[in-house]
C-alpha cells in the first residue's frame, strides 16, 4: 500500500464541491428528461390505448429506440443537437419513453371493462372518464413505469459526460481512464445510491392508497421540475472560446491541471468523450480539444496541433513491452519485434490511423501495405512452434501495431501467433500481461510513467520533459518491479496535444498554447 494513497473518503471530501455539483447535475438530467418523457409518453400511451391498432407499431418503435446502444445514440445526437445538455436530455428521454408508454397502455387497457362502461352509462364524458376513472385506476401501473424509467435514467445519465452534459459520469469515466479507483467510486457510489433511493421512494408512492396518492400526484410534477431545475442553473461562462477535454485529461497533471498551473490558461471547459470530441470540434461546437497527436481524425477533420511550447505534455513514445519470461521462451522474439524500430514517425502513424478510422480499411490490410512498402513483409512460414500471445488496447493504432507484429512473427519465425486485441484500457491490458495472459503489447512511455508507475508528482514532472530520461526510467523500473522489458521505441510519439480547426487557428493567429492564452486574455 502506498502511503500517499488517499482513502475514498478523503477523495470525496476533497472533491466535495465537484461531487455535489455532479450529483445535482445528475439529478437534474434524470428528472428533466423524465419530465419530458412523461409529457410525451403518457399521451402516447393514452392514444394507443384508445386506438389499439396503433399500439403494436408504437410499442415496437419505442422498443427499438431502447435497444440502440447508449454511446451510439449520444453519437447520433451530435450532428442534430450538438453537445451538452440538449442531446443528453433527448437521449435520456428516448430511453425513458418505452416503460412509460408501455405501462400507461397496459394500465389503461387492464381496467375492468365493466367499470369503464359504468362510467359511460352514468353519463361521464370521454374526458371525465379519462381523468376520473382511467388514469386514477391505471396510476399504480403508470407509476411503476415511471419508476423503471427513473432507474434507467440514473444509469444512462452517467454516460452524459461523454457529450459534455456533466453528471456523475465525469468521475466514473475520468476514474476509469486514470486508473483511479477512488475517483470511479466517488462517481459510482452516489449514482448507485441515487438509483436505490429513487427506486425506493417511487415504490412507496406506488403503494400509497388512492386518497394520499391524489395529493402526491399534484406535488410530484413540481418536485420533478425543481429537481430538473438543478441542471438549468446558469453557469458562468468566462471565455470566448470553448474547450472540450476528456475526463482523463481533466484529471491529469500532464493535462488540464498542467495547462492551468504552467500556462495559466483560463478557458471555458466542458468534459466530453474522446469518441465524439473531434467531430464536435469539426462541427464548431468546440474550439479547442485535447487529442492524441497521432489520431487519424486529426487528418480527417482538418485539425492542427498547438505547439506545446512550455513542454507540459510528457512524451508518449510507443514500444512493445514484453514479459522477460516470454523473451526466454521465444528467443527470436526480441529481434523480430525490433524490426519496427524507428520505422513509424508521427505523420506516418497519423496517416495509418486515418486509413483505418476514417477510410475504414481493415487494420490487417493497412499493416500489410505498410510492411510491404518498408520491404519488411514476408509471407507466413506457418511454423508449428509455440504460440506467442499478442495483446492490444481497444483503439485503432494498437490494432494496426498488433497486426504488424503478427505478420512479422509469422514471416520471420516458426512461432504461432494468437492475438488478444481490444483489451479495454491500460489497466486491463497491463494486468493481462502481468498475469501471463499475454506475452507482450505496445505501450507508451508516458503511460508507463504516469499511470502504471505513478512516482511522486515532482519527480514525474522533472523527468517527463525528456524523452530519453522517461524511457530509461520506465525501462529500469519495469524490469525491477514487474519483470517486464521495454524494447526499443517504434518512433512515433502519441502524446497529448491541444488541437484547433486549421482555419480558426489561422484566423486567430493561434499556433501555440501560449498564443492561445494570450488570445483568451485579450478577448475576455
Amino acid at each position, binding site marked *: 500500500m502506498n502511503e500517499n494513497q488517499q482513502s475514498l473518503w478523503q477523495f470525496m471530501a476533497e472533491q466535495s464541491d465537484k461531487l455535489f455539483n455532479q450529483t445535482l447535475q445528475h439529478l437534474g438530467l434524470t428528472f428533466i428528461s423524465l419530465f419530458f418523457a412523461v409529457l410525451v409518453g403518457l399521451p402516447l400511451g393514452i392514444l394507443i390505448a384508445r386506438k389499439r391498432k396503433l399500439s403494436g407499431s408504437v410499442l415496437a418503435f419505442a422498443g427499438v429506440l431502447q435497444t440502440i446502444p447508449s454511446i451510439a445514440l449520444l453519437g447520433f445526437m451530435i450532428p442534430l443537437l450538438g453537445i451538452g445538455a440538449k442531446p443528453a436530455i433527448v437521449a435520456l428521454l428516448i430511453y425513458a419513453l418505452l416503460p412509460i408508454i408501455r405501462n400507461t397502455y397496459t394500465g389503461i387497457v387492464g381496467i375492468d371493462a*365493466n367499470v369503464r*362502461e359504468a362510467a*359511460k352509462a*352514468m353519463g361521464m*364524458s370521454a374526458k371525465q372518464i379519462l381523468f376520473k376513472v382511467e388514469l386514477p385506476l391505471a396510476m399504480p401501473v403508470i407509476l411503476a413505469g415511471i419508476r423503471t424509467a427513473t432507474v434507467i435514467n440514473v444509469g444512462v445519465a452517467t454516460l452524459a459526460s461523454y457529450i459534455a452534459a456533466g453528471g456523475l459520469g465525469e468521475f466514473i469515466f475520468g476514474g476509469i481512464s486514470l486508473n483511479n479507483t477512488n475517483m470511479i467510486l466517488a462517481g459510482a457510489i452516489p449514482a448507485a445510491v441515487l438509483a436505490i433511493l429513487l427506486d425506493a421512494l417511487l415504490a412507496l408512492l406506488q403503494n400509497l392508497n*388512492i386518497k394520499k396518492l391524489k395529493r402526491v400526484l399534484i406535488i410530484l410534477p413540481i418536485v420533478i421540475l425543481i429537481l430538473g431545475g438543478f441542471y438549468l442553473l446558469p453557469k458562468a461562462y468566462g471565455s470566448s472560446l470553448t474547450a472540450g477535454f476528456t475526463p482523463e485529461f481533466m484529471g491529469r497533471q500532464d493535462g488540464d491541471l498542467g495547462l492551468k498551473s504552467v500556462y495559466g490558461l483560463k478557458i471555458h471547459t466542458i468534459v466530453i468523450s474522446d469518441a465524439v470530441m473531434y467531430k464536435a470540434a469539426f462541427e464548431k461546437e468546440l474550439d479547442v480539444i485535447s487529442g492524441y497527436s497521432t489520431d487519424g481524425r486529426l487528418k480527417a477533420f482538418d485539425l492542427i496541433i498547438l505547439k506545446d511550447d512550455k513542454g507540459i505534455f510528457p512524451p508518449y513514445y510507443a514500444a512493445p513491452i514484453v514479459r522477460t519470461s516470454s523473451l526466454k521462451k521465444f528467443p527470436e522474439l526480441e529481434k523480430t519485434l525490433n524490426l519496427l524500430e524507428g520505422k513509424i514517425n508521427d505523420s506516418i502513424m497519423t496517416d495509418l490511423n486515418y486509413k483505418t478510422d476514417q477510410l475504414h480499411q481493415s487494420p490487417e490490410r493497412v499493416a500489410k501495405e505498410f510492411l510491404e512498402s518498408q520491404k519488411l513483409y514476408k509471407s507466413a512460414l506457418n511454423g508449428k512452434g509455440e504460440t506467442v500471445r499478442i495483446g492490444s488496447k481497444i483503439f485503432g493504432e494498437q490494432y494496426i501495431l498488433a497486426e504488424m507484429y503478427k505478420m512479422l512473427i509469422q514471416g520471420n519465425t516458426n512461432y504461432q501467433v494468437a492475438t488478444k486485441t481490444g483489451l479495454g484500457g491500460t489497466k486491463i491490458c497491463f494486468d493481462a500481461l502481468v498475469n501471463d495472459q499475454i506475452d507482450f503489447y505496445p505501450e507508451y512511455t508516458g503511460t508507463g510513467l504516469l499511470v502504471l508507475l505513478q512516482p511522486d508528482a515532482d519527480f514525474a514532472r522533472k523527468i517527463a520533459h525528456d524523452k530519453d530520461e522517461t524511457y530509461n526510467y520506465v525501462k529500469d523500473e519495469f524490469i525491477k518491479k514487474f519483470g517486464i522489458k521495454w524494447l526499443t521505441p517504434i518512433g512515433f510519439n502519441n502524446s497529448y496535444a491541444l488541437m484547433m480547426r486549421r482555419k480558426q487557428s489561422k484566423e486567430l493567429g493561434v499556433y501555440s498554447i501560449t498564443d492561445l492564452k494570450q488570445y483568451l486574455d485579450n478577448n475576455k
Partner: protein
Amino acid sequence: MISVNGISKSFGGNEAVKKISFDVLPGESLILLGTSGCGKTTTLKMINRLIAPDSGQININGKNIAGEKPEILRRSIGYVLQNNGLFPHYTVAENIAIVPKLLGWDNKKTILRTQEILEKLHLSEQYLSMFPNALSGGQQQRVGLARALVTDPSILLMDEPFGALDNVTRTSIRKEFKALEELKRKTMVMVTHDIHEAFELADRICLMDKGKIIQIGTPKELLFKPVNKFAKDFLAGEKLSLAFKVVSLDDLWDFLPSSETRTPNAMPSTESVWDTMEKLQMQNSIEVKNQSGSYKNIEFDKLTAAFSLYQKRNRHE
C-alpha cells in the same frame, strides 16, 4: 313512455338484434327474458345509447333519443350493470355521488339523499367510507342499485341486477326489491334469464330468442297462452311453480270455501297462490277478502284443491 321501433344491431356479420319493437308504459316494468346471447343486453344498451342501433328508432317521452346528447340522456336514466361496475377507487359514498356530481347537485343535497336511499336499501351508513372491494357481493349489488336510484330517475334500466348472487341472497334481495316504494312509480326495463325472477317482478315479459321477440305479454299470458312451441318449451319445466306465482286468489275465488267471520284486516285476494302457501306454513288458516266485499277462509289443503279445480277448468277451455 319508452317506445322502441324496429331496431336492429349486428356485430360484424352476427345479427344480435333483429327489428325489435316494443313499448314500455309509464310506471310499468318490462322484463327482457331469454337464453344467453339472445340480445337482451344489446337491446337494453341501445335505450341509453351505450350502443347505437344500425337501424330503427327509440323514443322516450315522444322524443327521438338519437337527437339528444348521449351524456345528458344517460344522466337522466338509472342504469344497473350486469356486474355492478362500481368504481374500485371510489368509496361507497363517492360511488353513489357520481351522477349527482355530474348533475351539479350541492353536497348537502347529495348527502341527505344518499342517507335516504341507503336506509331504503337497508345498507348501514358505516359502509359509506369503505371501498367496494371490502363489501360482500350482495352489498355491492345494493350500492349499485343505490347509485342508479340516488337521483330518482323516472326510468331505470337493469341488466341482471341479481345475476352475480347466490340463490338465497338473490331471493331475499328480490323480495325487498319488489317491496321498495321507490321503485313502484318507475318505468323499468330489466334483463334476466331467470324465469322465476321474471315472473315475480314483471308487469309484462318480453321473451326473446336469437335477436327476435317471440312473445310479449303478462306472465299469465306467457304461461297459459304461449304463441308457439319455443314459448311453450321455454317454460315447460317450471310450469307448476310458475302457475302458483301467476294465479291469484281472485282466480280461484269460486272454488274456495266461504268464511264464517269477517275480520276487517283480512288479506287481499290479489295475493298469489305461491305467497299464500308460504303464509300457510306459519298458520293453519287465513281469512281473505276480495274487492266486492266477500270473505273466504283458506287452509292449505283447501287451497291446493281449489288450484287443481282451476287448472282442470282452464285445460278444458
